[in-house]
């Protein structure tokens, strides 16, 4: 980019009062995205923020960018249309676990399969908040909600696995209460060409308070989360003295210094590995056996739909004799009637 745009996060705040519940994780995500946008050196008018329905989908109203608060589940399809209509835009889709993975599941997987250049921010609080507390497609089996008074009898989606299954090229995970880290992740997602999916572990303070607490509690953060960075060893813990290795084809937690393990034995994160095997294993890690993986888990460059669309149009245009409607109308089989 030729010019440097000196935006501050304030430039992205709208005049509308933010109406999420006090203590809701969404506030922090809003701040992190506004900070990320200010840093990205993209023109203010070139951002479009598209959302579906749900608490998090009120997001566009709190941004001063172009925004479109649409209908339940359809944000991925609408955002795809926006990006294809004007590929120069940076398009963000704000969605939740119900919006993206239940009613909008089809659009979610197909956007990922096409690899359209969207930044999908998936707020996962494992509950339906706006309708006041019913189970969602990410709610754990057995969990009691208003529509599962005796506990749910279904297994949840793991968003990252769904992304990989749909041929996803970018998947990252972050936590609402870690503003600095999430800002970094959002910037990486925006910089990535293709569909980037960021799962944000987000706390619903009213209907599912503390659902992610074991992972997100700042006191145990370093013990319970592993912050993955491309090219760096997979180390975690307060003293960064534990790491991940592959043993018998599976991930395993080891302690540096025990059993002759050195840092050199620890796996080095390769987010760009096209093969998704290790990425899937990292996505699957759960407490208490493992720390939960955070950061950019997968970032693989591949053909981008909207770019291919533009290239194809240019290619066909360079070969075709038809350049305007008059030529099309008079092409092929025509005949003249003279009177």
């Amino acid at each position, binding site marked *: 980019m030729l010019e440097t745009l000196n935006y501050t996060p304030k430039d992205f705040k709208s005049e509308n009062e933010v109406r999420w519940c006090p203590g809701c994780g969404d506030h922090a995500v809003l701040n992190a995205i506004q900070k990320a946008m200010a840093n990205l050196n993209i023109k203010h008018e070139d951002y479009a923020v598209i959302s579906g329905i749900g608490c998090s989908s009120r997001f566009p109203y709190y941004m001063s960018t172009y925004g479109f608060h649409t209908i339940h589940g359809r944000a991925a399809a609408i955002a795809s*249309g926006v990006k294809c209509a004007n590929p120069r835009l940076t398009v963000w889709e704000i969605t939740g676990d119900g919006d993206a993975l239940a009613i909008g599941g089809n659009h979610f997987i197909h956007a990922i399969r096409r690899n359209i250049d969207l930044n999908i921010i998936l707020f996962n609080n494992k509950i339906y908040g706006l309708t006041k507390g019913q189970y969602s497609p990410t709610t754990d089996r057995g969990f009691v909600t208003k529509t599962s008074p005796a506990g749910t009898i279904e297994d949840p989606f793991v968003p990252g696995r769904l992304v990989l299954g749909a041929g996803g090229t970018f998947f990252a995970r972050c936590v609402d209460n870690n503003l600095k880290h999430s800002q970094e992740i959002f910037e990486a997602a925006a910089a990535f060409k293709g569909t980037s999916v960021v799962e944000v572990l987000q706390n619903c303070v009213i209907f599912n308070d503390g659902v992610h607490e074991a992972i997100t509690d700042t006191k145990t953060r370093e013990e319970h989360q592993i912050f993955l960075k491309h090219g760096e060893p997979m180390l975690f813990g307060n003293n960064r003295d534990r790491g991940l290795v592959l043993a018998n084809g599976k991930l395993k937690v080891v302690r540096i210094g025990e059993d002759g393990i050195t840092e050199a034995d620890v796996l080095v994160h390769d987010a760009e590995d096209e093969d998704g095997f290790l990425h899937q294993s990292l996505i699957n890690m759960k407490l208490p056996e493992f720390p939960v993986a955070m950061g950019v888990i997968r970032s693989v460059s591949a053909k981008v739909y909207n770019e291919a669309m533009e290239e194809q149009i240019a290619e066909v245009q360079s070969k075709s004799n038809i350049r305007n409607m008059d030529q099309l109308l008079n092409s092929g089989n025509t005949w003249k*009637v003279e009177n």
Partner: protein
Amino acid sequence: MSIETKVIELEEVSIRFSGDSGDGMQLTGTLFSDTTALLGNDISTFPDYPAEIRAPQGTVAGVSGFQIQFGTKKISTPGDLAHVLVAMNPAAVKANARFMMPGGTIFFDSDSFTQKNLEKAKFSTEDPFAELNLIDYIKVPVPITQLTREALKDLEIDNKSILRSKNMFALGLICWVFSRPLDYIEKYIAKKFGKKELVLEANRRVLHAGYNYAHNLQHMTPRYVVHPAPIAKGTYRNINGNYATAWGLLAAAEKSGLELFIGSYPITPATEVLQALSERKDLGVKSFQAEDEIAGICTAIGAAFAGNLAVTSTSGPGFALKSEALGLGVMAELPLVVVNVQRGGPSTGLPTKTEQSDLMQTLYGRNGESPVVVVAASTPSDCFHYAFVAAKIAVERMVPVVLLTDGFLGNGTEPWRIPAMSDLPTITPRIAKDPSLFKPYNRDPETLAREWAFPGMAGFQHRIGGLEKDKGGNVSHDPMNHQIMCEVRRDKVDAVVDMVPPLELVGEQRGDLLVVGWGGTLGHLDTAVRELQADGKKVSLAHFNYIKPLPSNTAEVLSGFKKIVVCELNLGQFVGYLRDKMPDFKYLQYNKVQGLPFTIHELSAHFIKLMEE
């Protein structure tokens, strides 16, 4: 079986090609139509094919037909009944007996009239013609299969390819019967099979074999003479309704200076609109085959938000799936064209057959007060005009517009005088110009249309959505505001009336009977009414292309007649709408839901009866 050499001179003639759905009858019919149009006849065609791609061979369910009418005068319909039937098997005779004109000619592949095929077609005797009471017909048996084999005997070609070229024999034969030259067809097959020399040679040989066979047997083959029609000066092409729709949208994109985006999902009989636009990447079309009908309209809504001329195409069941999103288009006040190529319903219904039964769904099939503009095309070629107009209204008035066509129009073809782009009206999208004055829901005081500003335009940043908002675009749950906004959205659609031309009558302003129709029934209604007028009957036709809003002179037109009969291919949807909007008149109705167009005969008979009552 007959008879002596016979030359039959006709002003108009209707031919039905009919065979198994794998027999290539659609191609045969299309090639014959193109040849005929090139000779200067006016034509109208009607493909009538089964929902299954290859239904069980030899059965009546698997019969695929293609009817064409052409003449020395203006032709508005494919014809009620066929003068000539080409039947490739017994099932084709059975399926089409009721579409035959008494005294007509039936050419049939006598090789296919085996015991087994007669059984498959559920004939119980060995004389299918007698069984169907086809007594007073000229029946011409032609051993098409055997003659095709004979023509190809020294060509090293497999049995399957031999059988597949049988349709060329039938085509050649019919070309001789109607004095059509073969050069156009030869050029076509040369282009189609250019790289497969053997197949090309086979098709060419069989085509000529059919032609020569008819010539050699002229003592028993009737020959028809149909002189060219007096047609207005100009350059013509054949076009079907789906292509005309796609090209009308392309023309609107060029005129408005907007890029065209189509988000769509394949569905019979609308798929061809998506295909025709996908073919036009050379004109910059962004075609997006979506994962479902909902994504089809939603990607289009996204494209409209981002400043493209946005289109989605579908048929009835798909239109139902798009309902919620269309409501978002209404609420957000975005320009959007939705094409509904109607078919028989409800549910999956009759996917390949025509009907006009989505009118109520289009007008009212959404949650909340959700008005859209509704326009209907009435001939295959005028789909171009109404698609163009639908796009013009959408981008000039910032409103979703639904264009209704149907399977009959979409698949039917007719010659079309090619317009010059310079003759089409201008289109001026309401793109915002001054950021200091811009508010997303500021309106033109007359038309109530808001301005269009889209991402990428500096200084116009704003938010829109599906929630109710106040005039300034902010979310509002205020009770009175909601009332006002519902009324504004209604009034905005009503204000489109100033773009709607007055309703024109076919016939006198006053009379005994006013025939009212809308959409794809024009050809049949117009022909029936004109024939009755020629007989001195005081009958006129008012045919509607603008459904919502209705033309401003509608009441005036309706007031000049003793009786009004509303004719539609449904159980009474437009008539219900008229009873609501124009309650001062008494409406009779004539309805048909058989998946087939009206016939002129049934219409005329009914109108005469009404006038005599």
